């Protein structure tokens, strides 16, 4: 009897020890404690690309709002966890991105990286992060590769509509509304421009032959006169400009100089922000820019029709509260806000005992409406669709008011909504 009792006691002891060890082994992953989430990202806060610096600030304002308010569960933060947002300057230099990212992962021990900005900077750390199994979520770039490579780089996911999707939308619109119009494309002869061009052809489908001329240029070229004159000589009805901001402005200036203004001008969204359009106006003229078409997926901060939407009111109120000296009309703050909304949602969906695996699962099964995007847009991902936002609205430029206005309906750039 005593022997049996001894055996039972020993078995219980072993079970208890195993249990405790197992629980101890199942520690929280880095960056997660009972009271906080530590997350991070790298952004160009200084240097040539520092015009994107408002993005992490916009994200910070939203996180501060979430940390301060009581949610539906009566808790502050995300299910009671405060968000600690650490972001570092990489100056858009991959060498610095590599160092700052390692600091975030190894020293600050962040749970995940969100919103890292720049195609090349983020490309520099894709392998490192995927090897270490650190989620690299919602990178701030439209380069299709960040979504397209999801099978080999499962920890990496984009956020905004990618360039291929945007090009597809231009193509779809042209195929439907301008079925017989001739199109001339001027594109940056690198992955960036080619991405857009492929999308355009994809969207045009059987009407891809409407593209009568494709004029590539190197981003380091100081003149696009040759390309623009060839497009003019081809008597096109539509010109599509797929270039980064500086060559885009140069193209507009050249069009003005050559007195070339076809019926329609398509300009890629990266180069179509208010800042760049103002510069283009200064270098070309109102007539050349008027009626230019681009795309958008965020509510326009200055559009009166959104002034009373819940999202816009929240944005303006929180910006006034936490960043009163910032220019809330800068769309990049809203971009950060919108992205931060999705960050908070996936953090919440990672559950009561978040792990990186659960976070990644949440990021690959997104399906909701973001209050800061254009109404009707659904943020959606699935194991076969790694692109969260793929819908865009076309916008048209009015040179006299120097404003963009939405027109038409919401269009789908890729996959299923």
């Amino acid at each position, binding site marked *: 009897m005593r022997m049996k009792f001894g055996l039972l006691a020993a078995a219980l002891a072993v079970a208890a020890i195993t249990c405790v060890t197992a629980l101890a082994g199942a520690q929280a992953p880095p960056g997660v404690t009972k009271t906080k989430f530590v997350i991070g990202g790298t952004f160009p806060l200084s*240097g040539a690309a520092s015009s994107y610096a408002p993005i992490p600030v916009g994200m910070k304002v939203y996180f501060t709002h979430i940390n301060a308010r009581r949610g539906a569960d009566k808790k502050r933060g995300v299910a009671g966890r405060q968000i600690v947002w650490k972001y570092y300057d990489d100056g858009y230099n*991959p060498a610095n991105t*590599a160092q700052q990212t390692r600091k975030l992962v190894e*020293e600050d021990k962040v749970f995940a990286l969100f919103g890292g900005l720049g195609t090349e900077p983020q*490309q*520099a750390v894709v392998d490192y992060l995927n090897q270490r199994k650190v989620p690299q979520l919602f990178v701030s770039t439209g380069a299709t590769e960040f979504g397209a490579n999801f099978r080999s780089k499962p920890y990496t996911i984009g956020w905004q509509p990618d360039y291929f999707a945007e090009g597809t939308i231009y193509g779809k619109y042209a195929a439907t509304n301008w079925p017989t119009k001739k199109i001339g494309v001027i594109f940056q*002869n*690198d992955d*960036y421009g080619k991405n857009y061009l492929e999308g355009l052809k994809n969207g045009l489908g059987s009407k891809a032959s409407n593209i009568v001329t494709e004029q590539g240029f190197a981003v380091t070229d100081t003149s696009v006169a040759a390309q623009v004159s060839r497009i003019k000589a081809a008597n096109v009805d539509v010109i599509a400009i797929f270039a980064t901001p500086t060559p885009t402005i140069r193209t507009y200036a050249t069009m003005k100089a050559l007195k070339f203004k076809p019926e329609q001008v398509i300009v890629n969204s990266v180069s179509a922000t208010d800042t760049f359009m103002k510069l283009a106006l200064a270098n070309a003229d109102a007539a050349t820019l008027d009626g230019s078409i681009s795309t958008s997926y965020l509510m326009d901060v200055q559009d009166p029709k959104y002034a009373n939407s819940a999202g816009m009111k929240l944005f303006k109120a929180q910006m006034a509260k936490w960043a009163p000296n910032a220019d809330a009309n800068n769309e990049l703050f809203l971009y950060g806000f919108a992205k931060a909304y999705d960050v908070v949602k996936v953090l919440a969906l990672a559950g009561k005992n978040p792990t990186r695996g659960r976070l990644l699962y949440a990021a690959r099964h997104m399906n909701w409406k973001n209050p800061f995007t254009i109404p009707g847009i659904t943020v959606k991902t699935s194991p076969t669709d790694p692109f969260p936002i793929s819908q865009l609205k076309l916008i048209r430029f009015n040179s006299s008011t120097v404003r963009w206005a939405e027109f038409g309906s919401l269009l789908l750039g890729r996959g299923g909504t």
Partner: protein
Amino acid sequence: MTARRLVPGVVATLLAAAAVCVLPYFLSDTHEYRFAFVATFFIAALGLQILTGYAGQISLGHGGFMLVGAYVTTILSVDHGWNDLSTIPLAGLFAGVLGFLFGFPALRLRGVYLALATFAIPIALIALAKKYSDFTGGGGGKPLTRVLTGHEAYVTTWPIAGGMFVLGWLLLSGKLGRAFRTIRESEIAAVSSGINLALTKTLAFGISAFFAGVAGSLYAIIIGFVNPDTFQIELSLLLLIGVVVGGLGSLVGVVVGALFIEYVRLYAPEILSWVEAPFGSPLDPKRAGAPAAVYGLILLVVLFISPSGAAGLLRNAYKSLARRAYTLRRT
């Protein structure tokens, strides 16, 4: 060169080598990673020191030779299956040959004109890298074959840095080094003492470009990714500023220069905000000009306080200590 004159240099070098060997035990992986960058800048600055500090030829374009080294390594290891470390000598050689060839037209130029000509090197090379995108991966860049941990990066770069330092020292302590210094002081005197001016000057460019090529190769390996814009003119200027801050004409000062290059670049916005704090931060430190403004500021401060850089400060400190020791012994 008498043994006595060598002693402080040798002692300093041994101490530095010991420090480099011991440091990994005290540093976290993240900091070891940063120190690996210090090693690559050390090699590049060493090359620049040979050209500018010793041979007196200015170069505002050494980032361009780093680009060459980086791409040789990338293309050979990614597209042709070479082991990345085995590409380093070839990368250096390729850059060295390019530097040597550049030396010929540069013979006719001096001072500001030479500076402007070297300025064109990275600009031209970046444009070439972007243009021949099938070869180089273009503006979007190209990932390398492997990702190194901070520790791996440290133990890959520092032994090579040490080797390059010894190489540099051997080159400079011989006839070539004396020829360089003579050219720097007076070209006429050099020619009259029988130095082949043309050959020596082009050799200076070639050798310093070789160093920069090796540095660029390591740079690419430790980042794990290469793209043309990493080698913009800012990098070249930073290399030169690093050499000046370390002390022109001093091999030991190059270490200080390398530390300067790495850490000022990382902390530039913070430094700028400390500087502005007493004035109520009128400028937004996180602005387009931030890193460049900081480099300029520090350069000005260094030139005012100690024109011969950190090495000059160290030398003066050593001299005053030595004098005191001598005086003490006398009395």
